[in-house]
């Protein structure tokens, strides 16, 4: 066991391999306030990568309703159960155990092993809200009935549990972009990665008899393009880029800006200890205790900041850049009401107005000599 730095829990932790950060780290940020679970991301991924034999049940990208949805069944509840109750105070390091530290002496990580029926209901719990709705109940705002949608891909973790647990060392993390891949020519289908990944994003293919996972759309990323799930997000809730650790933070990097500077985007279940690289802007109307369990004790601060975005033209500008280009933005700028995105070379790839221009027209059109009709 090596001791490695995990900035998300703000302490050193045990990991089977020594710390080796990639030159760049693939990352996606999702704004959960905007996701409508249309599943366009799931289908973009499915049609691109998992339409083959043996992949019928696979969703490398899925969207589940929280708290009752989950794919595979109850993955989050089961891994939290394995970890047991742990404490984490705001603004302090997490002193509880990670799944590496909570492992039995014979195991690499604390884990559970999903059975095939657990993978059969990708939309279980869809649109189910938390809390009973007794007869005669009605909604008062802010409401105590809540749910939110959680889109998930592989988190291409800095400390992947799948990689750590593969006895064949058939899983590797790319130095150039941090994407974690299962070598399809060396994997023997032992399923150790399926057992070990707490987010359950490694999946076994019954036809090829080896395991597979989200590949971060590396052929697109290599060409400076965002993954298919990001490009196709009609709600424009996602942005893919490269995240730096906080000590290498660059403020004009859109990902670093939201995660490190504004601290409104948070990793999910950071207490598991993998330093996952998908980040979420938490939903402002969901149960706060649940969100704290999922995103850690800084969730309150993230939500308070998000609520004040109306006074922050720079962050607003970045949020409108999300989903406005297929290209990866390495830096951004907001000036005079216009948000600009730039590629790795610094060339402009997109510009959008922070606020769409508002045009008011008179009721009477003098050119056509007719009244304008507002029929929708």
């Amino acid at each position, binding site marked *: 066991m090596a001791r490695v730095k995990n900035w998300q829990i703000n302490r050193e932790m045990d990991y089977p391999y020594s710390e080796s950060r990639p030159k760049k780290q693939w990352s996606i940020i999702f704004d959960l306030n905007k996701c409508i679970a249309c599943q366009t991301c799931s289908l973009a991924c499915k049609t691109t990568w998992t*339409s*083959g034999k043996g992949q019928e049940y696979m969703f490398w990208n899925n969207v589940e309703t929280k708290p009752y949805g989950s794919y595979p069944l109850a993955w989050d509840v089961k891994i939290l159960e394995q970890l047991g109750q742990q404490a984490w105070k705001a603004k302090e390091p997490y002193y509880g155990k990670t799944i590496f530290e909570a492992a039995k002496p014979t195991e*690499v990580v604390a884990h559970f092993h999903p059975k095939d029926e657990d993978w059969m209901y990708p939309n279980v719990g869809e649109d189910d809200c938390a809390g009973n709705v007794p007869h005669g109940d009605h909604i008062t705002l802010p409401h105590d009935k809540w749910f939110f949608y959680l889109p998930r891909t592989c988190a291409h973790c800095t400390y992947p549990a799948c990689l750590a647990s593969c006895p064949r060392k058939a899983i590797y993390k790319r130095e150039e972009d941090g994407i974690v891949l299962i070598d399809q020519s060396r994997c*023997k289908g032992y*399923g150790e990665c399926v057992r070990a990944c707490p987010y359950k994003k490694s999946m076994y293919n019954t*036809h*090829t*008899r080896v395991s597979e996972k989200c590949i971060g759309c590396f052929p697109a990323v290599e060409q400076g393009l965002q993954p298919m799930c990001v490009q196709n997000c009609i709600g424009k809730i996602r942005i893919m880029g490269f995240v730096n650790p906080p000590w290498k933070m660059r403020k004009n990097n859109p990902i670093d800006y939201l995660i490190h500077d504004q601290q409104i985007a948070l990793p999910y279940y950071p207490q598991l200890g993998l330093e996952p690289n998908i980040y979420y802007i938490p939903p402002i109307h969901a149960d706060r205790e649940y969100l704290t369990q999922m995103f850690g004790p800084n969730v309150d601060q993230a939500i308070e900041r998000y609520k004040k975005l109306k006074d922050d033209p720079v962050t607003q500008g970045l949020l409108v850049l999300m989903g406005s280009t297929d290209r990866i933005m390495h830096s951004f700028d907001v000036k005079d009401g216009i948000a600009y995105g730039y590629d790795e070379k610094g060339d402009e790839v997109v510009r959008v107005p922070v606020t769409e221009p508002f045009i008011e027209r008179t009721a009477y059109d003098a050119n056509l000599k007719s009244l304008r009709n507002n029929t929708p």
Partner: protein
Amino acid sequence: MKFKVLFLLLMTPAFAQAGDIMVKKVKEDFSKGLDPYAAYWSQAPEVELSLMAQPMMKPKPEKPETSQLTVQALHNGNYVAFRLRWKDSEKSEAGKLGQFSDAVALEFPVKSNENPPSVIMGEPGNPVHMFHWRAQYQYDEEHGKKDVKDIYPNLAVDAYHMDYADSGKWKGATQDQKEAYMHGMAAGNPQSFPKKAVDEIMAEGFGSSAVRKDQDSFAKGEWKNGEWTVVISRALKRDKGSVLEEGKSSSVAFAVWQGGKDEVGSRKALTLFWTPLKVEGN
């Protein structure tokens, strides 16, 4: 380092618990029609070996699901056949997600029979040669590889790429074009293609095992009344592999997996020392 010291101790003959395996010479054919219950097996002395939970590489089993292995061996001058028996309360052939196959493996040193490498997967520069039988592989050989529809009969699929029920004037796709959508196959992973009952594997340490493309080995297993009886036969002499010579001694090691108890890969029971093997001469 401390593991190595432990293993040197365990490998010394003084610590060997079991008797040597005596391989009698007979005139049976071990290259086809293998029968685990053939009458000729009564000529082969039985050796009882104790197995341990794999202790070196995580993930490990907490306890050995299989603690006893009964071994017999015979040869005919060209092939040596091992008859392996162990208790297993259920037959597991894998297939569905999260299901694993029952399996057994033989392991031989390649370079030196007197001073063999680490019994667990060999060492860099000092390889081992293994013969890995799986119930799942035997099913492939006997019935063909299970299709997804055989594993999940109620699965609903509209169409697979390049594989249409009515392709009109199109002549249809080549196998290569279809396999482009099946990543393990596209990558040429031997695991993804139909198997013979036994795989021949070379390894030089943990995680280095590679399946040999050339193969001169056969296997047949039967599960009856809570017990597997598996016969694996191999050519005495293998090019770039292990060589057994008549009238000489060698070493062999064993591993057993119970798929129904979630054993696979490094989760296995094994003999923690090389067992001496004496091949009868003329």
